[in-house]
């Protein structure tokens, strides 16, 4: 019995590796394991060489290892490209009737995928289901559970399609049961999950969390790897009374979102680096007009077009200093799909309480990966709309959008209230919202807008600390690397190394840190991040006065793994 299994599904774009990984992941999540998938994909629709990685574990997991116990290869290329990440002995499942192979270092197990698909599934397209069934067998899973997942996945398709796929799964399962090489099966020690789990990717989690937080307006422009957020909202817009619009470009999107927020609703957009760059003028607009907006920035490797379908954490500085001029903004960066819920709900609350733009930094790794979550772990902060008013008060036409208050936060009013008008202005302005050229007022207004940062900092959740109490090694990290760093710390601890992690999911404004350890006494503080210049490390050092002794960086478009960290510590 093992604790941990990793399965790769390789093939050309369009062959459905992601579906196989998802189906298997969900099957095992339902069976009480923790599963997690990561997709290593090229920017093309058909062809090329992609790899979906599924990890199944009996403890929480949200990273992969790039060491495969099992590789399902849907084409020859898939074997060629990935054979060096197969553990020894390891096993490759492939269709020996289509691909001719000589014995390699890993074990080979030919499953006649296409033949079984045609026979059992009545259609070549059920090849994926055959492969899925075979893997279930090899992992000693339950074929019935898998069929259930297939049924859900194909909900909306005809009964015939569903039946075909279920037959294909069963046929793959049975074939593998009967023919698998002796000792090839993997038996993962069960995890003791009491309640049923959810299996969900980061994009869906972000979109769902926004809907659960009262999203009422979404405008965006497609851009990998953020598009799934938009498509999710689009699909649900009517059921949840959300106005959703595909904009002509990102500039339109952000300005629509600012308009909707001025008009009184919770509004959001999502994009990636290039689109975000185009939005920065609009973010400055939100800063000046004090309009609460939420922008999800799903990072991918840059500069420019870069690697459209891969992962990186290199847009932190851009986000932090986005927009001309100086104004308060908030930057949050969920570590897992589960954390998207609390983060997104807080994003809307902070935006509305402080009337500032809030940027949620994610990346391809978080957005495209599926995570196993316990429902009880999910948290949505209760809605707090701050000083938003819906009914007019005071003498007619006396409302002032930017009335100067100690806190910097002026009461908002939804436009359209009887005998009051709401004036927002991108120029420097009076309390009433009209253009001003006064030096004195300018100073007050700058201080008003920037003054909010202090109060926001006091609300920022502290970083997550875990591991040894008086660590010799402290890994400092942020965002989607959470899983890999946590795993690295656990592995180091197991080896007897006193390591700990300090993980930031809320990045700016950084609060005063109250830590269980004394930073000054730690010999080896290491910033771990998915970029080339150590952006968070620098921010950390300005903020704490303690400069990390070292950085572990990755910037080849692939996610950081525990092993990647450990070999570089």
């Amino acid at each position, binding site marked *: 019995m093992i604790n941990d299994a990793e399965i790769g599904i390789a093939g050309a774009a369009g062959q459905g590796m992601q579906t196989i990984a998802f189906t298997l992941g969900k099957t095992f999540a339902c069976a009480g394991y923790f599963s997690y998938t990561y997709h290593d994909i090229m920017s093309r629709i058909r062809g090329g060489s992609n790899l979906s990685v599924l990890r199944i574990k009996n403890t929480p997991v949200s990273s992969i290892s790039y060491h495969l116990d099992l590789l399902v290869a849907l084409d020859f290329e898939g074997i060629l490209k990935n054979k060096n990440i197969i553990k020894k002995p390891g096993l490759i499942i492939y269709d020996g009737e289509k691909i001719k192979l000589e014995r390699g270092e890993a074990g080979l197990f030919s499953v006649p995928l296409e033949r079984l698909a045609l026979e059992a599934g009545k259609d070549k397209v059920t090849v994926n289901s055959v492969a899925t069934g075979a893997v279930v067998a090899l992992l000693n899973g339950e074929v019935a559970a898998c069929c259930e997942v297939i049924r859900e996945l194909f909900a909306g398709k005809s009964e015939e399609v569903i039946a075909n796929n279920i037959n294909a799964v069963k046929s793959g399962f049975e074939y593998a049961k009967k023919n698998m090489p002796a000792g090839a099966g993997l038996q993962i020690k069960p995890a003791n999950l009491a309640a049923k789990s959810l299996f969900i990717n980061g994009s869906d989690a972000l979109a769902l969390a926004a809907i659960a937080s009262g999203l009422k307006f979404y405008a965006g422009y497609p851009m990998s790897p953020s598009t799934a957020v938009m498509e999710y909202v689009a699909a649900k817009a009517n059921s*949840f009374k959300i106005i959703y619009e595909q904009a002509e470009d990102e500039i339109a999107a952000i300005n629509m979102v600012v308009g909707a927020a001025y008009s009184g609703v919770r509004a959001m957009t999502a994009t990636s680096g290039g689109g975000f760059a185009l939005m920065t003028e609009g973010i400055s*607009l939100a800063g000046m007009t004090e309009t609460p907006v939420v922008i999800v920035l799903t990072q991918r490797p840059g500069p420019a077009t870069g690697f459209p379908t891969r992962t990186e954490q290199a847009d932190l500085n851009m986000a932090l200093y986005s927009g001309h001029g100086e104004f308060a903004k908030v930057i949050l960066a969920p570590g897992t799909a589960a954390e998207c819920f609390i983060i997104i709900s807080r994003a809307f609350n902070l935006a509305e309480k402080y009337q500032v733009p809030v940027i949620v930094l994610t990346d391809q790794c978080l957005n495209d990966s599926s995570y196993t979550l316990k429902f009880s772990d999910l948290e949505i902060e209760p809605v707090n709309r701050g000083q938003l008013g819906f009914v007019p008060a005071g003498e007619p036409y006396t409302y002032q959008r930017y009335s100067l208050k100690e806190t910097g936060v002026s009461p908002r009013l939804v436009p359209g209230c009887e005998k009051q008008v709401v004036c927002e202005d991108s120029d420097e302005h009076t309390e009433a919202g009209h*253009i001003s050229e006064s030096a004195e007022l300018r100073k007050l207004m700058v201080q008003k807008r920037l003054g909010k940062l202090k109060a926001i900092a006091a609300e920022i959740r502290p970083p997550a600390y875990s591991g040894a109490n008086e660590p010799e090694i402290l890994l400092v990290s942020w965002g989607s690397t959470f899983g890999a760093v946590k795993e690295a710390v656990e592995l180091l601890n197991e080896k007897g190394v006193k390591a700990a992690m300090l993980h930031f999911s809320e990045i700016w404004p950084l609060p005063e840190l109250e830590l269980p350890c004394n930073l000054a006494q730690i010999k080896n503080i290491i910033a771990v991040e998915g970029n080339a210049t150590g952006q968070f490390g620098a921010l950390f050092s300005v903020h704490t006065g303690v400069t990390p002794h070292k950085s572990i960086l990755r910037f080849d478009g692939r996610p950081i793994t525990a092993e990647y960290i450990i070999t570089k510590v």
Partner: protein
Amino acid sequence: MVTKQDYNSTDPVAWCPGCGNFSILNSLKDALVELGLEPWQVVLVSGIGQAAKLPHYLKCNLFNGLHGRALPAAFGIKAVNHKLKVIVHGGDGDAYAEGGNHFVHAIRRNADLTYFVHDNQIYGLTKGQASPTTDPGMKTGTTPFGSYNEPEQPMAVAIALNASFVARAFAGDPVQLVKIMKSALLHRGFSFVDILQPCITFNKTNTYQWYKERVYKLEEDPGYDPRDRSVAFTRSLEWGDKIPTGIIYECDRPVYEDHSPVSKDISLCREKLVLPKLEDLLKAYF
């Protein structure tokens, strides 16, 4: 009953005395009053430029955003706050240069907005540079040897995009201007009016006199049918000795608000925020 005085603003007007914008401001107030709209029922949205300062000069809700970006902001405002009358003002640079893409797509979207472009064929606020509608040959700060790009014909472009209401007015004829403004405001869908607006400081070519000598009213031609797209297109190209004013093109098209059950008849911003239950949302993921 709402009166023109109700629209008075105390904000000091920063336009040059004699600027064509004054007449547009005054006409807008007339139109709003004649339609019985109160200041709080109206939102004026604008970008940046001389024209874009207009919202400050009458009492009303206003969102004065970025140069070129008024239309998307207005769309966001209207989409969730349906009962508002959302009116957008901008200059020719704002509308056709920096904001050119939004102009195209706002027409395609056909949301219930009204767009008044103060077309002075020049950049006023930045002190006199060529705009997309500047006449060829005109010397400006950025075209010292004369403007050479083909001037954009906003009427023709709007018709090519099948805009549902396309009109031209002249700031020097406030009677017609008020009439057109009212029609535009009453039109359901995206209504677009290009208003010829003399800039007395930086455009010494297209003066009051210049326009006055050229404009004529389409409404005086009984044979003109603004619902015939081809005819309208041909007429929209007329620019030179004669410049047509009035409603150049009109058509019936589904309005943005009619497409979705959400945008049809509610003002989202006024609804109490009822959150869906997380359990329900997550059903598919268990």
